[in-house]
């Protein structure tokens, strides 16, 4: 295990093996915009370095997973790869605020689109309109995608959207659902089981393998939720098909 810090900032990280073909780099232990941006910046550094043998660089809230083939003529063993990464990161990483795109996500809130909106408002002790106002504040970051292709984890919302996940998850959440828990949002690309609180739905397609890129959102994108009404929802949904 290597523990280091970058000379150009107070950034610290820890590199640790995850089996014989993957290593993890940890930048912190809690969900935080600046830690998330560090992960994304480090992911960019590693992708651009095009390290031999590396197949996937997977950012999450506080960590990066680096998948590699440790064999072949150019494949690195763990110690070599960790040292290479160490050297790259030591040259300095700064939280990434540049590479992501600004993306507007239209959301139809409440009613059949967001069956848990009232419950989220009740939990926060505010009105439904205030929940929508908090959720549509700008400055959200796509920390990571996971669980299913194209499913983004977006945050960090106002602490009043800190409702926990539902005690009993739903077996099927409709595609396009926008759901919140623990000051984050997820968007369901397809019909999936899920325990988050559904407050609305987007008419946009979040994943399409025929499209390039295949996912609507990517790690590092900045998301702005924009409220729309059911008529607009139907119009956009039809336009997208």
């Amino acid at each position, binding site marked *: 295990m290597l523990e280091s810090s970058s000379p150009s900032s107070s950034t610290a990280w820890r590199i*640790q*093996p*995850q*089996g*014989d*073909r*993957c290593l*993890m780099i940890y930048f912190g*232990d*809690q*969900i935080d915009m600046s830690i998330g941006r560090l992960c994304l910046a480090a*992911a960019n550094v590693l992708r651009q370095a095009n390290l031999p043998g590396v*197949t*996937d*660089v*997977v*950012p*999450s*809230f*506080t*960590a*990066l*997973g680096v*998948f590699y083939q*440790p*064999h*072949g003529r150019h*494949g690195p*063993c*763990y110690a070599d790869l960790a040292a290479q990464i160490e050297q790259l990161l030591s040259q300095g990483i700064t939280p990434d605020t540049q590479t992501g795109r600004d993306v507007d996500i239209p959301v139809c809130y409440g009613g059949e689109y967001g069956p848990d909106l009232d419950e989220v408002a009740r939990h926060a002790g505010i009105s439904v309109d205030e929940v929508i106002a908090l959720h549509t504040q700008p400055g959200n970051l796509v920390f*990571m*995608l*996971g*669980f*299913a*292709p*194209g*499913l*983004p*984890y977006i945050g960090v919302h106002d602490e009043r959207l800190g409702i926990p996940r539902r005690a009993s998850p739903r077996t099927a959440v409709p595609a396009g659902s926008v759901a919140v828990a623990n000051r984050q949002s997820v968007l369901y690309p*397809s019909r999936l089981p899920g325990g988050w609180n559904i407050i609305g739905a987007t008419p946009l397609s979040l*994943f399409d*393998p025929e499209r390039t*890129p*295949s*996912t609507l959102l*990517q*790690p590092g994108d900045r998301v702005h939720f924009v409220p729309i009404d059911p008529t607009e929802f139907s119009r956009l949904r039809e336009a997208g098909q």
Partner: protein
Amino acid sequence: MSITVIKPGLLSTFQDAGRTGHQHLGMPVCGVMDTRAHRLANLLAGNDRDQATLEITLVGPTLRFEAPACFAIAGADLRATLNGTPIPCYRPLIARTGDVLAFGSAAPDAGVRTYLAVYGGYALTPVLGSTSTYVRGGLGGHAGRALAKGDTVELQAVLPTTEDTLSNLAQALWQIRVYLTSALAGRSRSHLRLLPGVHWDEFTADSRNDLLNAEFRISTQSDRMGYRLDGPSLAMTTPREILSEATEYGTIQVPSGGQAIVLMADRQSTGGYPKIAQVITVDLPDLAQRRPGQTVRFALVELNEAQRLDCEREEAFTQLQETLAQIRDVLERVARD
């Protein structure tokens, strides 16, 4: 130039080395459960690059060749027959137009997955760079799903149809000797080898001891996504919320209930459970061949050793590929794409 599915078998899906490079978009890697058998099947069928093979599970399909083809079977013995006659695994074989290839059921304790490769590969459309079937996502492979009765699967290579040429070809292939070195042999180990997981130190001493000393039974709730292990309950010393992060094939995670789950080929790209250990790469084929009800024991190994074994297996594959160039030569002389 195709294969018709007469009976689909229990779960027959096309898989290749996996859909890597898209995990940061939430895409599961999928791909074969047993890379060893898959790669052997490909090499023995005369393919020198990764082609999808048909991953056959527990109860195999019945298939009819609508054109001549060279094929090979590797992995569990599912008692394959060609036109009713038993045929060997780990050999390049020739099928004629109209031949029926039928698989039976896996014998107890003799593995559960077998791989059918055809020379030139199956004509499948890659999705995001891979032909692996991702059944939950309905994409890749053949129509994004397991084979069904009546399916027609096209083949890429065309072999000559004259009987003389085919019997000469079959003869030439039969003469080729195939030896598998110990690094490529598929023998089952008494203990699967582990590396400590990223949260190893946070588990109780009892949990770590149990993982290394107890016997675990593969639960009936096990599939290509994960193997649940029935055995001692495992726990962190101070349970805490783990944030979702990258997971790997062979990661052993422990949800709060205490039951260990080994993540397999169709695992989600990220997971939010503590990870106690990781099955080493070269032992994954052994695990993937075990069925619900079978037991598994674990032992720790050093990372250097795990990577040395992985490299050794890779070297053995490279050597075998060179040795089996004669299969490709024989086939290339008569086939066209």
